[in-house]
Every structure is written in C-alpha cells, then in structure tokens.
C-alpha cells in the first residue's frame, strides 16, 4: 500500500515540524514588548487562517470537478478538504478570542475578520448538516457540491460586507523581527503539514467507508 507509506511519512513530518515550531514559539522567538506572551498565539493563529482558505479553495475546486466529471473520487476529496478546512476555521475562532481577551479585555469583539470567520464557520457547519441529513442519498454528493461552490463565491462578499460594517481592524501590515519571522514560517510549515496529513487520512477513511458501503450493497 503505497498510500499508507505516504500517510506515515506525512504524519512523521507534521509531528517533527510541529515539535520544532513549538520549540521556536516558546524558546526561540522573543516575547513581544506590548502584548507579552499571548502574542505567541499568532504563530498558529495566522497559519491556521491561511490553511483554512487553501482547504476551502480545494473543496471548491474538487466540488466543481465532481459536478463536471461525476467521479466519486472528487466528492471524497471535496468532503475531506471541507472537513479539515472546518477544523482550521474552528482553530482560528478559538485562538482569536484567547488573544482578543488580553488585547481588548473581552472574549468576543465584533471585529471584521473574526466575524467573517464566524460566518464561514456557520456556513460550512450547515454544509455538514446537509451531509448528515442526506446520508445514503444518491443525490447527496451533487447537492453538497453545489452548496460548496456557492459558499466559496460568498466568502469574499461576506468579508467585504463585514469589513465595511465593522470598525475595529486587524493590523494590516505586521513588521516582524527576524527571529519572529522564522518562527512564523516554522508555524506556517507545520500547520500546512498537519493539514495535509489530516486531509490525506480523512480521504482514506472516506474511501474506506465508500468501499464498505459498496460491499454491503453487494452482499
């Protein structure tokens, strides 16, 4: 099973990268003067946000491919990408308020970028609700694909609308000193490796489930 070897390799890489990144976050990168230790969340918060955008784009791409080619493979890929993407949206939503609590003194501030992640989370949660309700339905994959495409187009519009509506903004440009920059890149690499490993594993499970369903149908 060459697939399995890939999976083991990816997981080992993700584990190694995360250990290195965590070491850098806590022991190598200097403590930020104004925000203090809580700023260290940034090394995982921002990469998670980037990873979730990439994964949701993949979910959109595979959904479109599925509608076009109607191969179950693409549906499994889209489903896995959306699911792992959702995990990273959740991570952003959990780490954001932890930082926000010390910066703004409140757990939740209706800050544009955080708010649009909340809407994103709600949108994709509904997508999984749909998957849950339509389990075993032959049309489920197609319906989910259409929803994933519509949801993806909505992302920039939601973002724009919320940024006009809100008032407090994220720092637009962050200048990092070298040690911080390297730590950030380490965080980015480890989050992406973790995302890839999760994605591949989820995809394997997805395929195994489809295979089992097929066999049960035969029996």
């Amino acid at each position: 099973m060459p697939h399995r070897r890939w999976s083991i390799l990816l997981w080992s890489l993700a584990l190694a990268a995360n250990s290195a990144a965590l070491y850098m976050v806590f022991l190598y990168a200097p403590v930020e003067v104004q925000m203090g230790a809580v700023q260290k969340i940034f090394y995982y918060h921002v990469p998670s946000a980037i990873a979730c955008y990439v994964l949701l784009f993949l979910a959109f791409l595979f959904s479109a491919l599925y509608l076009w080619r109607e191969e179950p493979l693409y549906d499994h890929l889209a489903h896995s990408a959306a699911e792992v993407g959702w995990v990273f949206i959740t991570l952003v939503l959990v780490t954001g308020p932890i930082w926000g609590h010390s910066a703004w003194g409140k757990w939740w501030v209706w800050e544009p970028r955080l708010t649009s992640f909340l809407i994103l989370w709600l949108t994709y949660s509904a997508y999984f609700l749909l998957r849950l309700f339509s389990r075993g339905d032959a049309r489920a994959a197609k319906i989910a694909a259409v929803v994933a495409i519509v949801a993806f187009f909505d992302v920039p519009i939601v973002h724009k609308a919320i940024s006009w509506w809100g008032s407090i903004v994220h720092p637009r440009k962050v200048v990092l000193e070298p040690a911080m920059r390297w730590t950030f890149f380490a965080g980015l690499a480890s989050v992406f490796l973790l995302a890839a490993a999760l994605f591949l594993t989820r995809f394997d499970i997805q395929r195994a489930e489809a295979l089992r369903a097929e066999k049960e149908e035969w029996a």
Partner: protein
Amino acid sequence: MRFIKVVAVLFLKDFREELRRKEDVAASFLFALLSLVLFAFALDPTRVDLNETGSGLLWLVVLFAGSLFMSGSFRKETENGTLYALLLSPCDRGALYVGKFLLNFLFLLALEALLLLFAYLLLDFRVSDGLPALGAVWALVTFGYAAVGTLFSALLAQVRGGHVIFPILLFPILVPLVIAAATLTEQALSPGFSWGNQWLRLVGLFDILFFTASVFLFEFAVEE
C-alpha cells in the same frame, strides 16, 4: 423567445396554483405579521423608535417569513411527482429555475409591501419621502435573496428534512445582503441618499453573481 415563453407559462402555472391553494401564502403572511407583533412586545415601541434604530429588524421578518414560503417552492413538485414531468418536458432547465425565481421574487415583494404597511400602522414606522428609494433598495436586495433561495429550495426539495436545513444553510450565505439591507434601509430613509453607494454596488454584485451561478448550477441540482 422560446425561453421567455416557457418561463411565462411556468410562472403563470405556479402563480395560479398559489392563488388557489392559498396555504403557503397565508402561512407566510401571518407569520410575518405575528413576528412584527412579537417585536413590539420585545422592544417596547413607546421607547424604541423603529425609525432611528433597528429598521433592519424589518428585514429579519422578511428573511424568516420569506424562507417559510420559499423552502416549499420545489417540494410541492416533488411531493406530487410533477417534478419529473417538468424535467421530462423538452424545455430549457434554466427556464424552470427562472419561472420559480420570478414567483418567489414577486411574492417577497408583496410580503414586504404588506410588512411596511403594518409597520406603519402598528409601530409608527414612517417612510414618507424615502419610499421610492426604499422600494428600489429592497427590490434589489430581494432579488439576490430570491435567487439563492430558489436554488437552495431546488437543492433541498428531495433531501430528508430539507425544510429544517433550508434556513440554516441559506442565512449564512445571505449575511452580506442582511448587512446591506439594514444599512441601506436606514440610508434610504435619511435625506442625503446617493445611488453611487458602495452597498448598492455590493448588492448588485451579489445579485448578478448568484443569479447567473444559480441558473447554471440549477441543472446539476435537479438531475434525477
């Protein structure tokens, strides 16, 4: 030409059906009125001025009552097995979508007109000079709402528990429209309203993007 004719035939069929059945129209109108009354209890109209704060609340009523009506617009066809007849007929699938969309759009406009009337009567919501601007703004927002709503109604028509998922799936997608509606309603009622507004452009983009995408994606959604 043929496309328009098919759309007209389908629209008139649904229009006549709704007028005869009455149940969905009546349920939706009553729900809207009821929500308005409940808002009065929740807000205390002697202290909260709807004109100054929370004119976007009216849009929430449109959203909830409208989704009640729209979620069933394709379910009716599947319940009676008439969807297959429609799909078998030699007409453009897009026309099927546009026909349903038109009915939903017009229904929502009627609902909004009624809502404005009752908001004036019950909650002293004054539109006066802003009516043309308000009408245009609401029509634009409603267009986008009906476009996505009709598509999702088609998607969920055959899904178990589709009517439960419908609003949960639809409302997050509509967040830009809701924000725009709330902001634009306030702006339309104040004197210095300009048509070059960034919100209007955003709503316009939403309308065009999702209407086109829906006509295109509808074909995939209703395949048997």
